[in-house]
């Protein structure tokens, strides 16, 4: 389970970005590709552990699932796939190794609240 180290990286990045802006993190928006190798539930679980005792303790991790898209050279079109078990064009059934989306493991946005003046 490498989701804990992924969660720790998320916390690290978010804390840095927030402190540079003098703010607290309310929520983190992450895009998770179906081929990222990261399991959503395990990441959510790990996030709770990774944030304990940090400024992000009560923040929310919001995950957007990104399905796999392949480019089919025969149809000359990009197609979104239902699963990851078969990388074939859903129209012409040709296999394709040209993956356009689905490997994302990105922080896309932070919801910040200005830190209360002390």
């Amino acid at each position: 389970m490498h989701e804990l180290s992924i969660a720790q990286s998320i916390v690290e990045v978010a804390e840095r970005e927030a402190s540079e802006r003098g703010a607290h993190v309310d929520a983190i928006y992450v895009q998770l590709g179906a081929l990222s190798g990261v399991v959503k539930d395990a990441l959510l679980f790990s996030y709770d552990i990774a944030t304990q005792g940090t400024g992000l303790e009560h923040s929310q991790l919001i995950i957007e699932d990104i399905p796999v898209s392949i480019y089919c050279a025969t149809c000359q079109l990009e197609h979104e796939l239902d699963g990851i078990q078969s990388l074939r064009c859903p129209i012409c059934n040709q296999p394709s190794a040209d993956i356009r989306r689905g490997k994302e493991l990105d922080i896309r946005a932070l919801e910040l609240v200005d830190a209360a003046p002390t």
Partner: protein
Amino acid sequence: MSSNTTTVSTPRIVELRHNILKKNDQLARALRQRFAEAGVFVVNVVSSPGSGKTALLERTLTTLAPKLSLATLVGDLATDNDAKRLAQSGTKVKQIETGTLCHLEAEMIGHYLGDWDLTEIDLLFIENVGNLVCPSSYDLGEDSRVAIFSTTEGEDKPLKYPTLINSADVAIISKMDLAEAVEFDRAQMHASLRAMRPDIHIFETSAKTGAGLDDWYTWLEQRVLAKQKNHQQASPSS
């Protein structure tokens, strides 16, 4: 320190595009550059525990040692048993004990390469931790990622680990000597692998009988030569 003032701030959204594995990817890129400059061909070997990874490497190292300068980094949660086995080939071997970590990261590779002079190495194997999930996300700066599946694991096993297969460019089906005994469906196995990685290069081997190993050795030697040729073209003065 929080104060008791009840200043209400409206949340604001800050857009980012930060790859969570950026640090690893940057370190992997630096490693890839170092390997290219030294002309080392690097293979990251991934598989589940018990797939015959160490037996295959043992035989590969012993066979190729007279022709190539070889080195291996061996990742394991604990013990240096595998490293000891591989060291009997007389080639350079170093153990990376990962403790509780289920995969190798680029940072560890950089650290454990230590004082090895890369210009003296033709072929570097990185034996990843036995795991078919976690290693798939971590680039180690390798040229080739080789996934090993044994016939005893069943021909549908690749379907359970699509991300790993998709990240590999080579698959080795090991323990072919047991194929008949376990009624291994070869065609189904090839189909399972190609479903997730249509251009995957497949070898069928037996470290016990030696069957299929010549093709694997030839492939390695060709790739080593190609890498060295690129290296010489890139630095004609050396």
